């Protein structure tokens, strides 16, 4: 593990972040946008774990932040999918362009 510098792990996680960003910009389907958000959250998790392991190996704060981010991501995915299913019921489509009114 010590042969790989910390910078390489950070480059991998930032590449993952910008791949998720590209997906968020180009996709117009709500489920695929949700997948892009999951990729972005995961890149943040990799950063937390890598910093914890390389810079402060005797502490655990990065692990706890990662666990909390995972829990929040699970809650966020559940709420997002409930909203998506509700939208599909009302608009018969989950394209973001189709959902152009909030209450009717």
């Amino acid at each position, binding site marked *: *593990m*010590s*042969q790989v510098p910390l*910078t390489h*792990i*950070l480059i*991998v996680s*930032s*590449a*993952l972040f*910008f*791949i*998720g*960003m*590209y*997906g968020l*910009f*180009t*996709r*117009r*389907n709500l*489920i*695929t946008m949700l*997948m892009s958000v*999951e*990729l972005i959250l*995961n890149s943040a*998790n*990799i950063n937390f*774990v890598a910093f*914890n*392991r*390389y*810079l*402060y*190996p*005797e*502490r*655990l*704060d990065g*692990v*706890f932040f*990662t*666990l*909390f981010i*995972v*829990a929040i*991501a*699970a809650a*966020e*995915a*559940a*709420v997002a*999918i*409930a*909203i*998506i*299913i*509700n939208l599909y019921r009302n608009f018969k489509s*989950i394209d973001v362009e189709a959902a152009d009114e909030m209450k009717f």
Partner: protein
Amino acid sequence: MSASAVVFYMLSVVVLGAALVAVTSRKIFRSAIWLLFSLTGIAGLYFWLQMEFVAAVQIVVYVGGIVVLIIFSIFLTQQSGKDLPPPVRVRAVFSALAAGAGFVLTCLMLSQHAFPAAVGNRGEAVAGVGTIGAQLLSTKEHGYVLPFEVISVLLLAAMIGCIVIAMKTKPDNQ
């Protein structure tokens, strides 16, 4: 280059390649499966960093929970086998330019920044499950019991919110 470094670079290629296919594939179900591979690769990265508990949580919550939820919602809302419409060309070009420029900028900043050496004992993993559990529920100085309780309330609120949002509304009296 040692075997450990080779493992790291192979895992990185798997993670990034699967993520790239996941955000560009035209079939939404394949996109979800590639996302699954990417998340499993990230769990492999955690194993490589000797954070076994985080890797286990990643597999259980992401691969076992979130991806399965996404696949269920695809089955509920999408006609399977139909391609997604391709992205608008101008939008795709500018998104790729923006993401690429951001990536290059981040890499420049990373290459210029010198990180300090590790504080304390480097190489020995302390992230055992017992240590994590004891500190997570500790009320002492570095304990995390308050965020733990707050996040359990958040999960309860999210569960109630999901039920309320997805509940079928009663037909109006008309």
